[in-house]
């Protein structure tokens, strides 16, 4: 247990350092962005610009602004949006993080679970019609953009069958079903493909043969002995997949009119909304770092050979 505590605290320290490097790099790069946060800058007089710069602290030297910014975020103050009527950014994003994260997590969870089951069945029924069907599904799912799937789902379930809301974020869970399905197609296809390949190999291994020799049924050995070993490579792709889905898919969010952060991010970059860009970058990086950390811990749970502790 002590080793675990040490391991986790060391990892957290590394994460903090990484995050600091990302913040610094983004801050410097952003200052090199052409243009300014003010619309119609040409029509503003120098005096007006000076007043605005003073108001937002942009007249200070870069180094001073950087130190001020760091001090502020340590106190949880991410500044105000230059674009959206001086709203605090935390408040602006807080309303948008929820829907994006919820959709992302639901999509990853649903997609990988269903994909894994498909993959295992395909591997167990290798070279039969079930296997062919599952592979075909994986290829189609992987190569169809999720906004196409989104529109098809909307047409089928909202327009024709009138079972579910077509968009917006008003009906609680019911509004999340269609966007979740649309987003889950690609993780589902990826998981099915990955698990099938791994499972075929695992099912041919000696320890599976030994489990058969114990008198275990095929289904039981596939799920108790096979799956755990086949899951290891899947863990690698699940992490980044989760982050990219949690931080929002711009197109899918737009199609379903969901107030997520994907849309917010694009807007802030286009309008040089410095502090919003910073905040979204920090959010994205923190999520990615957290997910990588969780993945590393998961590896150790799944595969005892990479565990930090030598003995129990």
């Amino acid at each position: 247990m002590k080793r675990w505590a040490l391991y986790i605290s060391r990892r957290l320290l590394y994460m903090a350092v990484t995050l600091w490097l990302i913040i610094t790099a983004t801050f410097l790069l952003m200052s090199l962005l052409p243009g300014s946060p003010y619309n119609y800058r040409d029509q503003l007089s120098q005096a007006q610009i000076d007043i605005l710069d003073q108001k937002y602290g942009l007249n200070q030297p870069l180094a001073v602004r950087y130190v001020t910014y760091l001090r502020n975020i340590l106190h949880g103050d991410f500044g105000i949006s230059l674009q959206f009527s001086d709203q605090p950014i935390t408040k602006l994003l807080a309303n948008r993080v929820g829907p994006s994260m919820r959709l992302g997590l639901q999509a990853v969870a649903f997609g990988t679970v269903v994909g894994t089951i498909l993959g295992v069945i395909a591997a167990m029924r290798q070279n039969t019609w079930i296997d062919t069907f599952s592979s075909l599904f994986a290829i189609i799912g992987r190569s169809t953009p999720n906004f196409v799937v989104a529109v098809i789902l909307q047409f089928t379930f909202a327009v024709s069958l009138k079972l579910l809301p077509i968009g917006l974020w008003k009906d609680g869970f019911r509004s999340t079903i269609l966007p979740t399905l649309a987003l889950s197609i690609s993780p589902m296809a990826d998981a099915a493909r990955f698990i099938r390949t791994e499972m075929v190999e695992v099912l041919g291994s000696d320890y599976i043969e030994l489990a058969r020799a114990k008198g275990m049924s095929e289904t039981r050995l596939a799920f108790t002995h096979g799956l755990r070993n086949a899951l290891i490579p899947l863990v690698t792709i699940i992490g980044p997949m989760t982050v990219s889905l949690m931080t929002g898919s711009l197109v899918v969010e737009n199609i379903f009119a969901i107030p997520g952060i994907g849309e917010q991010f694009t807007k802030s970059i286009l309008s040089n909304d410095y502090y919003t860009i910073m905040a979204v970058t920090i959010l994205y990086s923190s999520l990615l770092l957290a997910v990588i950390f969780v993945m590393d811990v998961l590896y150790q749970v799944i595969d005892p050979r990479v565990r930090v502790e030598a003995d129990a």
Partner: protein
Amino acid sequence: MSDRHAAGNRNSSNRLEVRELSVSFSTYLGVVRAVRGVSFDLRQGETMALVGESGSGKTVTCRAVMRLLAKNASLDSGSISLDGTDLLKLNRREMRDVRGNDVAMIFQDPMTSLNPTMKIGRQIGEAVRLHNNVSRAKAKSRALELLDLVGIEDPARRYHQYPHQFSGGQRQRVVIAIALACDPKVLIADEPTTALDVTMQAQILDLFKELKRRTGASILFVTHDLGVVANVADRVAVMYAGRIVEIGTSDEIFYDPRHPYTWGLLSSLPALAQDGRLYAIPGAPPDLIYPPTGDAFAPRNEYALAIDDLAEPPLIRVTPTHYAATWLLDPRAPAVEPPPEVARRQRLYADRQVNI
């Protein structure tokens, strides 16, 4: 020919009776006849070794008993009965009840036979619980008992460890513990020492001898190493090209072999090498997609007779326990002098028989 089925009547002391077993595999190149009419008995509490070079059909024979053959395999004919029940007639469910319960198997490579992501205690306990309706606690105490039985020290601690925390020899002990979980009537060991280094081999062989004494299981011990056989087996069956070419007690095979292939195997044992040169049987085993009409060993056999190209020799009786499939045993065959080392052993054996 009648002698071939000399052991054919069901005998109550026989645990396992394999009769005229034929197994083939369909491959892209054609149908490989891997096992071509193998018959043998395994008696209660007896250890029988199945010896032969790679591709002689020994592993396929074992896997046929477990009904764990690859998907492209086909059981063409024959029967395998365990205490009178033909295993080849059981359905999948019934066969699962036999596997690991009545018949257990130990595999060749202990480094890959254990699930790397599961604690060894659970892997043993699972084998117990698959065939016995017992609580987890009961399965655990049985697993600890088994670990102790196979010579793993400090079972209580080792129970919670993973395979990578065990050495090759220890892992093979764990695999043996799994096989013994349900007190099997028949234990099939498919080259259990081949992947181990020499000192480990000796220890595992000692373990087998001890287990035989303590558990009373019948053991079918597959190996390509005659040196290993001498150590553990009561009886030996020598396989070549998918057939048993000679079968007898250990003494009969080691001191009075009659088949030229057995002569070759014995002459190629390092301990018997004359003038520092290691003997090797010339040539390679035949293509089993197109098995030869006559004696499959004839092309490599310096003692081959003209008839060997025309007709396959049946197993001819030497003693009630000893049979060899060679025309040299036919009354019409010319007398031949076996290789010097074999002749020396035969003289030794003859003397001993007289003295006793």
